């Protein structure tokens, strides 16, 4: 199976966040960078499928030059080679723009399966994978929890709302967006870190691939949410009130 895993490099979760002077994004300088969390699970899923069914795992990223280190992390974990589509503008590009770049790189090669994370930790659009599927003309499934190869196709388990799941059979080639937490992500072992030195990492500029960098979506202003306090009284009998409270905690506050 030729598996392409798309990876985004995002600001690390424990970074100190400061809104940039132009109020369009956060100060880049303060950030440490890491692999987007759902993408790490997508990579793990890709590596497991390769171990079961053979083939190759290619790590692909569209980003500024620094994103190469995230690709090398994937190589250290076991990906066979990497492709970086490099342009500084990708750091803040919208999902369509990034999907165009990823699709251009993947579309040039024979691909059986394309994996992305469900969404990114920075913008959180949740769109890159599905747009890419459309551009590559591939069937796709989102919020995937389990992947099994069967009779030349796939059987996947998707997460729906409210504790429901859906099992879908689909043909290959296909694109899946992977949910966080579905597997235990492996270590970049010291052996892997060393081996990664010798693995190929190819860089294309966005220009070389003729990527249309036009933005279809722009950030107008970034600001901190206002903290508000609200009080609601729940009326009714103790039992009714408890049920109503549970409902609110589950679906409004999403605390449960």
């Amino acid at each position, binding site marked *: 199976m030729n598996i392409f895993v798309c990876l985004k490099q995002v600001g690390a979760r424990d970074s100190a966040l400061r809104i940039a002077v132009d109020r369009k994004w956060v100060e880049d300088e303060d950030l440490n960078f890491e692999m987007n969390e759902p993408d790490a699970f997508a990579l793990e899923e890709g590596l497991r499928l390769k171990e079961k069914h053979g083939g190759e795992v290619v790590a692909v990223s569209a980003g500024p030059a620094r994103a190469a280190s995230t690709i*090398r992390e994937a190589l*250290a974990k076991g990906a066979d080679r990497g492709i970086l589509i490099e342009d500084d503008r990708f750091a803040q590009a919208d999902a369509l723009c990034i999907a165009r770049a990823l699709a251009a790189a993947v579309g040039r090669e024979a691909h059986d399966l394309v994996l992305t994370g469900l969404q990114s930790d920075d913008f959180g659009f949740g769109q890159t994978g599905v747009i890419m599927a459309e551009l590559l003309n591939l069937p796709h499934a989102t919020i995937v929890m389990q992947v099994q190869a069967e009779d030349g196709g796939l059987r996947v388990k998707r997460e729906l709302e409210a504790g429901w799941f859906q099992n879908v059979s689909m043909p290959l080639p296909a694109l899946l967006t992977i949910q966080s937490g579905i597997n235990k992500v492996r*270590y970049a*072992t*010291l*052996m892997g*870190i060393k081996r990664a*030195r010798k693995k190929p990492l190819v860089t*294309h500029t966005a220009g070389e691939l003729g990527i249309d960098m036009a933005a279809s979506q722009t950030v107008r202003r970034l600001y901190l949410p206002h903290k508000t306090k609200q009080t609601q009284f729940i009326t009714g009998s103790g039992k009714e009130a408890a049920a109503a409270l549970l409902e609110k905690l589950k679906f409004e506050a999403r605390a449960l």
Partner: protein
Amino acid sequence: MSTIVAPLEASVAAPSGGSFLIDDPSPEQIFTPEDFSEEQRRTGATADRFMSEEVAPVIPDYERKAPGVARGLVEKAAEIGLPAVLVPEQYDGLEMDVTTQMVVNESVGRYASFSTTYGAHAGIGTLPLVFFGTEEQKRKYLPKLVTAELLGAYCLSEPQAGSDALASLTRAELAPDGRHYLLNGQKMWISNGGWADLFTVFAKVDGEKFSAFLVERSWEGVRPGAEEHKMGIHGSSTTALYLDNVKVPVENLLGEVGRGHVIAFNVLNLGRLKLGSSCAGGAKSVIADAARYANQRKAFGRPIADFGAIRQKLADMTAKTFAGESLVYRTSGMIDARLEGFSWDAPGAAKTALKAIEEYAVECSIAKVYLSEILDFAADEAVQIHGGYGFHRDYAVERSYRDSRINRIFEGTNEINRLLITGMLLKRASQERLDLQGAIRNLMFELAGGRVARSSGGPFPVQRDMVGRAKKATLAMAGLAYRKFGARLEEQQEVAAAIADMAIETYAAESAMLRAEKASAAGRGETTGDIVTVLAQAMMCAVGGRAALIAGACAEGGELEQYSKMSAKLTRFTPANLPAARDRIAARVLAAEKYVF
């Protein structure tokens, strides 16, 4: 289309060992944690993850030596390569650089008991074989040590022979058949003794020629004693080892007969630097515990983190840890720079590697002493910040406090290491490997002229000048002491230790300053300026005190007058506003609830 290669490591100088006392290096010449390569950072991240996910959850079991827990963890560590860092590829090792090994040690140092198990196995339990083993021995044992199929231990100490290791009474006699040595004796304090499979044992052939042997646990007559009841590092195994007519095949002699001391002492050089980096890891971990607690504990209606007395402690713990970390990686960077292009395939490779490490034996001893004392200081202050709760077993700092103490004792006590620092500096001078005499002569001319040349420039000109003068004070006092006692200086232990202290303080403060200068030249690190301020003033106070001690012990009358004036001049400084600097350092640590520099 282009192919990206890993970024090149910063190009660092490899001056002669001890030359920090006489040279004035520029910041670009030293290696700092900010210069870690992507691979070194990634290795650190892997080791950190291992410590958080595999080790931290089993600490309670580890502390009571639950059967199999330690071995299980070393095996897991082996799956990700942690014991293989310095082992040649030919024997399934990773052949990475010394800095990478330090990064791993720092991370593992967050939990002292495991750190001891790991160090006894992958460090002193494996490296004698790496550097002194025959091809056969290495092929037989190294791949199994790398996978942790075998656990290693190092057996030098005996009940009556600790610091004085050569007073060993363990004997080896060649059996009449000429194919075996018979080993008899008792080893003491053996880390991993309870669970190791392969022991590097030192013994005297015919009661005279100090030598090393590779001894398997399964052999008849090998018997580890019961677990010792220790003050700290409860999770690590420490036992005696009894050797009763153990038949050791001649092939298992390590190195040459009568050359055991070369093995013992060489292995300790790197061991001391590693102990330094694991203490840095330990110090960072107690800083995080203390900062978290200070934010959360309230007294008199405020978090105790608001109090100047608490902020002072956190700032000093942080500043010293910064200095310690800076000097460890500066030293590993110099070793790596010496080993640039090193290959195990080259003839005499082991000798080349050992020589590069031995070159910095002074710096390795400094790392051992300085960092073990910082960790002790930081753990002590962390308990203090916790108040009564710090005295309770439910809080991690209680364990850190007990665990830290051993670092001043093993790998050569700090007394022995202080004496070594001065001794080795003098020896290097007499071997003309380090021109101390020339530097002292020039200094005396300079001082006779009545004016002290100032080093300045860079973002911290005041501190740069202070470091420069502290070095001069060290040289002047070492010169005085040498004139007075000559080769017998080492017997004047208080004076010799005071010289060592001056060297330690200067190396630490200078390493921190150079690192801060380098960071600032790269547009980072304006915040480390406060740390440099705090360290430079502490250094000057310490250096001034030691200079007075040496002057008083070595001179009298007019000469004493002259030297105390000179030392006053050299160690004078305009006081900085320390509480303000410390307040800013503490603010950052408290905001992040961890060591952030």
